[in-house]
């Protein structure tokens, strides 16, 4: 069973129904006991970093995520949920993240030309680092296949953890992993068939 952390952040309708579609059992929960019993954890998230971090701490899930991932349970952070895995975010001030992925979350704007739209919204291609074996998260996903992004900040200084990038003038971090912790900047639950393959790969870990 997969526990999708319910901390009042973002739209989780499609995330929940996508697990039904791929035949994996997932529950939306903020109950520490349910999360402890789960095989895997999903940390979703849409919105602003500081607000989400506070909500995650207030509902007690912050500590549960840290203890469960330390015990080896697979975790997938999605969009803002991925950004929360980092040590710090520079969105409206400097805020601490879960610190599961080394690096910081910084604005896209300074690394793209002025005529590039911010947020980076839309379908963009995945590129896998040539110097690493492909992550099991991307089994059956081809170089260049498009996934859906909506973000104004990205993970930086996390080269060792990067398992996919996407080109938006600069190569932006599209996905990260460190041990049993995974994160995607894009929304697999909004990325059509490619996204379902990625969620299935995670469900089968």
């Amino acid at each position: 069973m997969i526990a999708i952390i319910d901390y009042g952040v973002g739209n989780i309708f499609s995330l929940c129904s996508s697990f039904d579609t791929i035949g994996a059992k997932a529950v939306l929960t903020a109950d520490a006991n349910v999360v402890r019993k789960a095989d895997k954890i999903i940390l979703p998230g849409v919105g602003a970093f500081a607000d989400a971090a506070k909500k995650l701490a207030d509902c007690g899930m912050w500590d549960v995520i840290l203890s469960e991932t330390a015990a080896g349970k697979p975790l997938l952070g999605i969009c803002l949920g991925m950004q929360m895995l980092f040590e710090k975010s520079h969105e409206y001030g400097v805020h601490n993240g879960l610190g599961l992925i080394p690096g910081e979350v910084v604005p896209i704007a300074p690394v793209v030309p002025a005529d590039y739209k911010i947020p980076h919204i839309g379908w963009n291609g995945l590129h896998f680092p040539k110097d690493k074996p492909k992550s099991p998260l991307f089994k059956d996903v081809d170089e260049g296949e498009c996934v859906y992004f909506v973000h104004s900040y990205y993970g930086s200084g996390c080269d060792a953890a990067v398992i996919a990038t996407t080109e938006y003038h600069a190569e932006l971090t599209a996905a990260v992993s460190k041990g049993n912790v995974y994160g995607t900047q894009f929304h697999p639950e909004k990325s059509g068939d490619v996204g379902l393959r990625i969620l299935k790969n995670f469900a089968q870990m």
Partner: protein
Amino acid sequence: MITKRIIPCLDVKNGRVVKGVNFQGVADVSSPVELAKYYSDNGADELVFYDITASFEGRALFCDILKEVASTIYIPLTVGGGINTVADFDRVLKCGADKVSVNSGAIANPDLIEEAAKIYGNQCVVLSCDIKRVDGQFRLFAKGGRVDTGIDAIEWIRQGEARGAGEVVVNSIDTDGVKKGFDIEMLQAVSDVVTIPVIASGGAGCIGDFVDLFKTIPTMDAGLAASIFHFGEVKISDLKDKLADEGIPVRKIKGKN
């Protein structure tokens, strides 16, 4: 490289997809769920659903349909029609919408844009504008294009971005349903004043119209159309093949095109 989005738009009334020509006269086209799945399977990058029912019963039915669509396909869904309050945002987001399109509701209460952006994020708020040339000005129309607000549309959109809109849909009443191409002049005027993504709507009649749109205004993010897709005049896979041939970046679906 970010790809140009192709977005079919589905007007839903009493549980069925309909499309007006120049906003008058509707023809029943198909089932929203079936049509949504067909488009998703064939390469649509996003879908827009406009709820054009006014009754309470119609609205409840629309929400049921939306839930069914959102449990069937996994691409971004934008929902509009009858969005006047933050409670309306909440209602459709809970049914699986990713973005909410505001039009007359924002004209009646411009603070709605800011309120919704603060709660749900800028990316969630799509400012949809029906625009027509009046006395040499791009004029903003309300109520499905029936009422001249007297407001300068370009200024309205500029303010909309400042208030927190994350995207803008520009629907030209002058070219809508005419099928002679997008309103390049109007779209360029909007693109010149905003930095948020702009979605072109109104006037597409053939594949070449999309090529012209993205070639003439390279910063344009997306093209939206309804009847040409619903009636099969333009197949999205053919459209994307042609755009790719012309060097315009598009998303291709593995094994499909």
